[in-house]
């Protein structure tokens, strides 16, 4: 099943709640409901790759001469790849800086905080 596309649809928080998702933020979030290819087995799992594109001016914006990525990250393992031609100048979490094969800079880190980390990363455009 590797790489097999899965059916999904975007549902409202209320619909997610009716489907059994009863969480603190259920009503205020919308959700991608993904139909799994098989029920999750006992002591097993179903590995997924979810791709999506966000537009959020509050999380990715220009601040002065900088391109700023500011986002609360609940997932522990993260990588942020900046556009080509930008260099990282500030990062408020311990991270690795890696140059991708195409020249883009990647900020990679794993945080150990019990709650989400508010990551703020700044980059500036390199002179041509």
């Amino acid at each position, binding site marked *: 099943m*590797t790489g097999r596309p899965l059916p999904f649809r975007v549902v409202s928080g209320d619909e997610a709640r009716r489907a059994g998702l009863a*969480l603190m933020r259920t009503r205020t979030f919308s959700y991608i409901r993904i139909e799994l290819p098989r*029920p999750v087995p006992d002591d097993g799992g179903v*590995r997924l790759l979810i791709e999506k*594109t966000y537009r959020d001016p509050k*999380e990715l914006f220009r601040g002065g001469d900088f391109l700023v990525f500011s986002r609360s*990250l609940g997932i522990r393992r993260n990588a942020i790849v900046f556009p080509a031609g930008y260099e990282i100048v500030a990062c408020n979490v311990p991270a690795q800086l890696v140059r991708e094969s195409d020249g883009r800079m990647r900020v990679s880190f794993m945080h150990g905080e019990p709650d989400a980390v508010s990551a703020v990363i700044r980059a500036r455009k390199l002179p041509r």
Partner: protein
Amino acid sequence: MRRGDQFFGVRPDAVLEPGAERVRRLLQGAAVGRDPSRFPSLSPPFHSAEACVVSFFSPRTPTLTVRREIAKGRAGGHRVCFPHDGQRLRATPNRGNRDDRLLPGGGGSGRSSPGQPAAPPVESDEYTRYELLSPGSSRFHILYEVTACAAGAKAYFNPIRKGSEASDEHVFATG
């Protein structure tokens, strides 16, 4: 107990009575009390049901409240957090603080109240890669890898944050 099993002098029994008193002393200790921000998180390698993680988010930590919570046994199996100023103390399940949980067949929250046993995790081994798109567009591409591990679940819910416009969604089974 080996020296390596200790963490800032707190042993695995430190959250038990009278161990709670030991935690209180740690919290009020000179080094931590003066500057809690130096210790953003104390995560002793506890493995017992009484395990907890003590986290500092504010210099004004409600130490006595936490001691009382521990003494009541309400911290058992939970993470005791010191929230930001102005927020109430809370205890959360001793696992990732995530909201996008799904229990098989529905009917569960995946989030326990204080005093309740922690619900089993419904996802694991998560990794997110953000690819920032053209500057000025405020758009970024997200590749999120996750293992749905709630036994019996037939669907998985991935949240779309409030305030974010999502597009170009695709989902693949990779294993």
